[in-house]
């Protein structure tokens, strides 16, 4: 039987850089085929070629034996190819109904007007098939990320999709949402849909995929049955070398020092309650829990971005009054926010300007920024953090994902904090970059920085933390020492408990 999707000799380059080099791959009908590779390995370009957004320079794609015209979005859709992106591409101000149908709306008999009744009926049917039940007239900007993904999925299904591409679908989902998404993906496969599954989360690939294709630097490295691989073998294929840091448990170097951050009874009713934290110099504390458990909110409250109704925050023994970022920063606290692309970096600005942004006030001389002071600071940070950039004049957007990540952290390190809070420091970053960021965090800790890491990536929390604090529904449900922690222990504390029967 010929393969359902056949990609042969696909090449594409951007300004002399090869994104894809003569890539060949086959996908069988009805399989879940995973696609792996580091950032920049060519996954996105391959997907864009399949969906007709990008015109490849060489090579062909055929679906069910028929050649697919290159660079034609409509033709790809008509052939039954649909894609769901990581940051679900949606029209935020349109409602669910329009999001599902825009671009291929059904018409009434006359061919002039929209067939609203049919749109409504089909949308309801699709969402039901996905086990969803929410208001389809509400603008999707008011839906949760998981719900938006379901809207994208419903769109794909309603166009009689036979080949569904999922591009990092779980990047912003909680563990529970991820599970239900994976269940839906399996259900679709059983209904005969062929699936290409792209994810950085390797455990998902082992859980769900039949076969996996690995790309590295634009070339196909291998295609293997998942059953023949284990985690480290897959990582080896992706990176081309073993990554010991990721498999090894971190052991704290020395004895922790004095208390840097102390939080007592912090409460914001309905969001988090009665939070106690103590972090010592040189300590890395992981804050684990499901998305929505209130972790980011605590970080924001400590940093003074949000107010809280009760409790105390002490940084270096200095009591903060709350609600003042300026005070928190001058006491030695820094927060690296979660939404880096929007809040963390100004992409068109230079590497240097991004790094010095948080401390510009200290680099001035009679009211003007002193270029020499700035250059010295930036140079030091770049070498400390091993940021790879052609020069500090280059725009931040030209850097790789991992280096951008280091840039964000560097921006806050510039303020020489004694307590650093990192919210999801490696979300959406490939494995090698993740390892670099982890090495950086450890390095900073060994120099006495007290660090609080919020992460939804269980492996990250387990491998980097000296201590793990787990939250459940706005409260601390337990604390585990780093070397005693296991996935099971953390999950048990994070997942909602069955309601106890009242006696």
């Amino acid at each position, binding site marked *: 039987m010929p393969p359902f999707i056949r990609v042969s000799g696909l090449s594409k380059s951007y300004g002399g850089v090869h994104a894809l080099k003569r890539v060949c791959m086959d996908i069988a009908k009805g399989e879940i085929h995973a696609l792996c590779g580091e950032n920049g390995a060519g996954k996105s370009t391959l997907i864009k070629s399949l969906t007709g957004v990008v015109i490849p320079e060489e090579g062909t794609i055929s679906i069910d034996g028929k050649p697919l015209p290159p660079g034609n979005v409509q033709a790809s859709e008509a052939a039954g190819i649909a894609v769901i992106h990581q940051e679900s591409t949606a029209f935020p101000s349109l409602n669910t109904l329009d999001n599902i149908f825009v*671009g291929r709306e059904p018409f009434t008999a006359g061919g*002039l007007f929209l067939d609203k009744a049919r749109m409504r009926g089909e949308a309801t049917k699709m969402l039901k098939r996905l086990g969803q039940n929410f208001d389809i007239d509400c603008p999707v900007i008011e839906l*949760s990320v998981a719900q938006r993904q379901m809207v994208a999925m419903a769109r794909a299904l309603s166009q009689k999709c036979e080949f569904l591409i999922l591009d990092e679908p779980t990047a912003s989902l909680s563990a529970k949402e991820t599970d239900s998404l994976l269940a839906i993906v399996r259900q679709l496969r059983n209904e005969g849909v062929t699936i290409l599954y792209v994810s950085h989360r390797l455990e998902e690939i082992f859980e769900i995929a039949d076969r996996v294709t690995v790309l590295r630097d634009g070339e196909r490295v291998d295609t293997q049955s998942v059953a023949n691989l284990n985690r480290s073998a897959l990582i080896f294929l992706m990176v081309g070398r073993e990554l010991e840091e990721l498999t090894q448990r971190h052991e704290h170097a020395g004895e922790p020092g004095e208390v840097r951050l102390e939080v007592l009874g912090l409460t914001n009713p309905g969001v988090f309650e009665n939070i106690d934290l103590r972090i010592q110099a040189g300590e890395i504390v992981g804050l684990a829990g499901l998305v929505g458990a209130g972790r980011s909110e605590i970080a924001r409250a400590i940093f003074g971005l949000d107010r809280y109704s009760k409790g105390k925050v002490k940084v270096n023994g200095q009591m903060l009054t709350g609600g003042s970022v300026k005070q928190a920063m001058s006491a030695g606290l820094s927060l690296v926010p979660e939404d880096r692309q929007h809040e963390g970096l100004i992409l068109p600005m230079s590497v240097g300007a991004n790094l010095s942004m948080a401390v510009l006030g200290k680099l001035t001389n009679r009211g003007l920024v002193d270029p020499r002071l700035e250059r010295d600071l930036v140079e030091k940070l770049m070498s400390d953090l091993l940021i790879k950039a052609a020069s500090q004049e280059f725009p931040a957007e030209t850097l790789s994902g991992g280096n951008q990540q280091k840039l964000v952290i560097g921006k806050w390190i510039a303020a020489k904090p004694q307590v650093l809070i990192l919210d999801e420091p490696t979300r959406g970053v490939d494995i090698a970059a993740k390892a670099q960021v982890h090495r950086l965090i450890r390095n900073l800790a060994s120099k006495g920085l007290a660090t609080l890491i919020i992460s939804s990536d269980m492996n990250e929390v387990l491998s980097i933390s000296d201590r793990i604090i787990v939250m459940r529904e706005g409260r601390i449900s337990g604390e585990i020492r780093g070397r005693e922690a296991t996935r099971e222990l953390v999950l048990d504390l994070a997942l909602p408990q069955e309601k106890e029967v009242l006696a």
Partner: protein
Amino acid sequence: MNFMSRLLRQREYGLTAVILIIGASVAFIDTGFLAAGNLKDLIIRCAPTAIVACGVMLVVLTGEIDISVGSLMALLAALMGMMISETRMEISMWLGLPATLLLGTLVGAFTGALVTLGKVPSIIVTLGLLTALRGLTTLIMGGNNIDGLPDGLGQMTKYGVLGMPISVWTAIAVIIVTGVIITKTALGRRLFAVGSSRYSAKMVGLNETRLKLFAFAYTGFLTGLATVVDVPRLPKIEAGIGIGFELLVITCVVVGGVSISGGRGKLRGVLLAVLLMTMIRPALTFMDVGESGEKWTRAIQGMFILLAVITDSIVQRRRKRRLHDL
């Protein structure tokens, strides 16, 4: 949803309330405000603004802007006058008026082409055209006003049919057509979609260029239409026609609740805003503020823009907060 948040979120409710309050207060001072003749006059004043606002609204929905309609109206009025005036070329108005509409559409399409194909931001393109078209008009008219338009046209535009000038009937037709485009056709949906997210629109294969070209060309056409049905009411055509008209139209679109970044807005809101903006001047007349009426009109219209923008930002902030709570 409680009353306050509905008032904030649904612009139509707020606008209706403000219109009623102003109407009632002015009528309380002088019941003449509600006399049939005065209301009719108000509707006639609304007509050209409503016609052009229908086009500019579509442009703003796609995330672009057009601030050149006032100057375009002047240019089209001048060209129309040159063609059909008995003292000028004396072309039949059955040829001259369609030609005016065609010219309007062409200028609109040209604007759209500069924005989409030329990749120049629409605020810059139309700012340039605002000045250039006005200059061209002055050049063409050479310092002389144009009079001597055909009598029939003057009659139609002044007194019209069934008791209303044709500008009012035209406005009603344009409103219906635009409403149908927005709510019932795929074209309308796609205009919203492009304004909501250009990236997503590209991913689903929408033709951004064609959609935006349509919106600009439609605006040009409607500006022509407004010129043809409204300008001949005036005793003569001057080079200063339509000064400030573009700002009035944009004001109506923004105050009417259309998001200036595109993707969101309702025709009903825009029409209510047209009514509100147009009634300020006569309301002031009835309140006897005397000579300074014109100056106050502008100040009050400006205040409504600020009010609209502030409500918008409050709504956005509330929405964000609600998302944060999820």
